[in-house]
Structures are given as structure tokens and as C-alpha cells.
């Protein structure tokens, strides 16, 4: 999984691979073995190689989060998502609004792993609930909708990418 962030005006790209004990992270030329020890209430406790770290996070918007680590406060913004794979609107992993309405709840965040049929987003249109569910298992790669926002028919809402196994 590839993550691209904008921090203090510079772009940082990170790749995480699943690993028996956690993840392997590639950041530039550096490689780290990552083990998540504890995640609760916006607090992450994890191990990079042999060293333990703590980070505190808070979301301002789905794409903008505040992070505190080792005495520093950083604003981390998700860089614009690059389209890969299915590029046509309405492709299997590209979920669009079936009718105009309002986004009532976004149930996932970018990077979440989801299962087939899992509800991802709830819309309200003409007093009706519309549930947008995952067409297949995968990873959420992009969120284009915000809670409370209005959408038109066929607007792109969520992108789900299948994880190659």
C-alpha cells in the first residue's frame, strides 16, 4: 500500500507491505520493520525496528490530520490520489452516487481494509436511505465525499482497490 502525504509543503511517500509480524515500511531508501502495539483513542503505540514510538492523531477533515510525535506537532495532508487500475467512472471499484442527495455518514477512512458487502457510506435522498457498500474486498484508496455534503447523480464517492493476495 502506498501513502503520499503533504507535510510542511513537501511530499513524502511511504509504502507499507504486510509482514508476518506487522508491516515493512519503505520510506525513501530506508526500510523499517513496523509493529503496531496499541491503538486507542487517537493514540498509536508502535515499534520501528527495535525502538518504541508514540503518536497522537486528530482528524480535522478526512484528508487533513494533526499528528503529535516526539514533541512535534505536524499537519499531515493526503496528497491528491493518483488513479490506478479501473479508470472509467463507475468501474467496479469506483463507487458513484446513484441519485442526487446528501451524504449522511462516511463509515470508512482512506486506507481502511473492507470486506465485500460492507457498508461504506450512507446517503439520504428524498427521505430515503441509500447504502453504498463495497462490491468486493479491498482497501479504500480515495474518499471524495464528506459528511453533510451534497452530491449529484454519478458523482464519484469512494474508490476501493482490490488487494492482490
Amino acid at each position, binding site marked *: *500500500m502506498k*501513502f503520499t*502525504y503533504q*507535510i*510542511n509543503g*513537501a511530499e*513524502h511517500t*511511504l509504502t*507499507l507491505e504486510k509482514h508476518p509480524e506487522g*508491516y515493512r*515500511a519503505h*520510506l525513501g531508501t*530506508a526500510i*523499517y520493520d*513496523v509493529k*503496531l502495539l496499541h*491503538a*486507542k*483513542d*487517537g*493514540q*498509536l503505540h*508502535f515499534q*520501528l525496528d527495535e525502538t518504541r*514510538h508514540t*503518536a*497522537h*492523531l*486528530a*482528524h*480535522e477533515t478526512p484528508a487533513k*490530520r*494533526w*499528528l*503529535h*510525535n*516526539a*514533541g*512535534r*506537532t*505536524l499537519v*499531515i495532508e493526503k496528497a491528491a490520489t493518483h488513479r490506478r487500475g479501473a479508470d472509467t467512472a463507475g468501474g467496479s471499484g469506483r463507487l458513484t452516487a446513484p441519485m442526487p442527495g446528501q451524504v*449522511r*455518514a*462516511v*463509515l*470508512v*477512512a*482512506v*486506507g*481502511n*481494509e473492507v470486506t465485500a458487502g460492507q457498508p461504506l457510506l*450512507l446517503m*439520504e435522498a428524498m427521505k430515503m*436511505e441509500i447504502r453504498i457498500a463495497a462490491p468486493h474486498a479491498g482497501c479504500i484508496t480515495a474518499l471524495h465525499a464528506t*459528511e*453533510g455534503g451534497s452530491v449529484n447523480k454519478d458523482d464519484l464517492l469512494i474508490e476501493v482497490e482490490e488487494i492482490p493476495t
Partner: protein
Amino acid sequence: MPQFDRVLIANRGEIAVRLIRACRELGLSPVAVYSEPDADALHVRLADGAVCLGPAAARESYLDMNKVIDAARQTGAQAIHPGYGFLSENAEFARRIINAGLVFIGPPPEAIEAMGDKAAARTRMQSSGVPVVPGAQDLADDTKIQQAAATIGYPLLIKAAAGGGGKGMRIVHSAADLLEGAAAARREALHAFGDDRLILEKYLTDARHIEIQILADQHGQTLHLFERECSVQRRHQKVIEEAPSPLVDESLRAKMGAAAVAAAKTVGYTNAGTVEFIVDPVTRDFYFLEMNTRLQVEHPITEAISGLDLVHWQFRIAAGEALPFQQADLTPRGHAIECRLYAEDPANGFLPATGTLLKFSTPPGPGIRVDSGVESGSVISPHYDPLLAKIIVHAADRTAALQRMQTTLQDTLALGLTTNLDFLQAILAHPVFVAGEATTHFIDQHLPNWQPAPDIPAAAIIAAALAELHSPSATTHTTASPSQDPHSPWLRLTGFRMGGGE
């Protein structure tokens, strides 16, 4: 305390919270006032009663004397504590409170008046032997101004006689700019204070700002509680304060303390107050700047080294109690530092920041005190001062206090809006500050274009990715606003929001 048992706190933010807690400790019932956007503020929730003063604009709420005094009457409060800022140094406000038969927790209105007029205060200080900055007042016309400037020399400072808060203040570097600067200062002073009288003062470029805390009872005893150094400033606003001052030794402390006591006595001062001096770090000559006739923002560092609760003493003095100790009984103990946590962007001209403080916490520990008016979820509006909290540490000596402050700031969380938290750490780590040599130009000279360090720790980037993968439990979301319709089926959905792991 016989005279009053219910006190109206005519302020907001951290100082209102601090005053309310002091009331509780003394068995007094605190009443809050608030403006509309502050309806849910911490100080409102902590008080026994609360009165809405009006809309956000301070002029229509916290600065409206009639509304504040009415609120006291309405709630049965017999005393009013003004805090700092707002109406705290307004002699008319103090007088109206007294005329309404209430107790003003502060000095007599005459003392506020005497110190409020900078020109008159200079004259009075000179006549009682308190050294003032070389300068001149009572300048009737341009010729007088030119004559005075020639005697004082350049650079010099033009100030509004009625002024304060940097309004009507001008630095003039040469005779060529003098009259133009004076005209501008006059216009600004007339606009801000309705009074265009000016004073001239020599501008000391490498000076230290050192102030003396005064405590005076109504029985003739006036004491000083040592000094505070507040040289680290941005735009004439203090950022870090410490006590004792690294520049002041015992003999200078005694001299400055005696001068401050004399200054206070000259105007018949009672209650807590602060006499500000500027000090030449080379000659150690000190000059009276002004007296702040109220509680200071930075009073906690004096409380730490003196062991005295200044707010308690404000109430007790106002209730007529005599100070049970004398100057010889007081000795400073250890070293205290205060950092002001501001919602502002030090990398962008200290522009105030607004928004929601998504997460706020400070570490507990020995020698750590946090005076705060905010909590996680507080909305920081553009209407008032950007001060979020004061972080105060106390330790055996300056080195230990600096270390304690650094670790405290490192473990402080202020997420959701830009603050000066990283900038404060940069100041504390700067060799000039560490050496105790910072002057009032420290920030301009040594950290003029400060930017956050460009290197981003790998752990931070990895943490961001881990948070995305484990989002439901690992990140704090702002809560979605529920549907307005109570019968809406959407209300039930909040229960299974995956992001609901706040």
C-alpha cells in the same frame, strides 16, 4: 471573609477559570459572565451562576460596564473581580462598582487613574525618587518636542500619555522623522484614547523587561514579591516569563523592590499590582516604565517562587485583612518559568489561528501547573485574545526549570489549530535564552524568520499511515452532527459509525 460571599468574575478564558477556582478554595460563590459565543465555555460551566452579557464584540459584552454591574446586582454578587485586560484598569469601572455599594477586587480608582496617565505617572515617580526612562512629558508644541528630543537623543520612543497596549507608540531613529512620527502618534492617540498628549522616552535597544510584583494591604503595609523577567516578547506581547530574573542579583532585587514599593505608595496603592521597569543589562540601571494596576497574566511564576497565592491575597486584602508577614519574611524559592500557549502561527507573522481544538492535554508531574480556559473540543473564535493556556513549571534552579519546561512542552498536545508550541521549544533551546541573556529584541534578532524544522521524522509518517489502516480506533474524528429531525432513522445510525471510536 465578612464583606462578601459571592463574587462576579468579569472576565473569560484561563483567568476566569483561575479566579473561579480561587473563589471555591476560599468558600466564595463564583458567578460568571459571558458573551454569546462563550455560552459553553469552561468558565461558564464552572461557576455557580452565569449571566449572558450580549454579543461577541467585547464592546457589547465584556467591556460594557453597565451590563457587568447589572449582572452582579442581578445575581446578588457583592464583589467584582476584573481579572486582567477588559475593564481591569478602568478607573471609572472601579468607581461605579464602589458607588453601587459593591467591592472592587483591585486598587482604589484614584491609584488606577494616577498610573493610567503615563505623563502624570512619570512626573509623580520623578518626584518620589523612582528612576524613570530619560525623557520628557508636558510637550505643548512641536518646538518643545524638538527641544526635548535633542536632549534625549536617538533612537527615541514617542508614546501616548493616556495610552497603553502599544497604541500611539512610535520609534523614531533620527531628527528628520521626529515631527512626522509625533503627528502620527498624536492622531493614533486621539483616536484610541481621545487624548493626544505625548511623552518622549529614550529608546533602549538592548534592554531587559523586568517587573516587580507588589502586594499592599489597606493597613499601610506594602511589600514586593521579587521580580519577573519578561524580555521574550513579540509585538510588545510577552511570550515567556521567568522568576527570578537571570540578570538580577540580591542587591539589584532590593533596589528595584524598594523603588517599586515607593512607586506604589506614592499613589496610595492597595491590592496586587506590578511595577514594570526596563533594565540596561550592562550598567544594570533600571527605569520605571509603568505600573499595571491589576493581576498580571504571568502572576503564577511569582506564586511558585514566593509560595503565596496572589488571587487569595487579592480577595483577602479587599475584604480588609492585613498581610501577616513582612518583607524580611519573604525569600524566593527555586526558579519558575511560564510559557504562553497562543493560537497563532509563529512561522507566518504570528497570525492568530482559529478553529476547533480537537485535542488538548498537558502532562501531569511535579512542579507543573497549567492555567487553561480551554479543553479538547473548545472552539477558538476570532473575537478574543489568542491565549489558550499558560504552562508553568517550578524547579530547584533555572537549569532544572528549563529542562522541566522542555519535557512538559514536548508532552503537550494541542491538535486542530496552529499554536506556538514548537516555537516555544525553539526559544527554550536557543543558546542566548539558555544563557539568560535574552533582551526585548530576542525574537527579532535571533528567531526572525522561524520555520518548523524541515526534516520530518520517519515515525511521524509511518504513524500517519498506521492511523489510516487502523482508523476506526486510532484517530479522533470530529463528531458528525446528528439529523435535526428526532424521528429520523439516521439518528440510529450514529451507533454504528465506524469512525465513532472517539
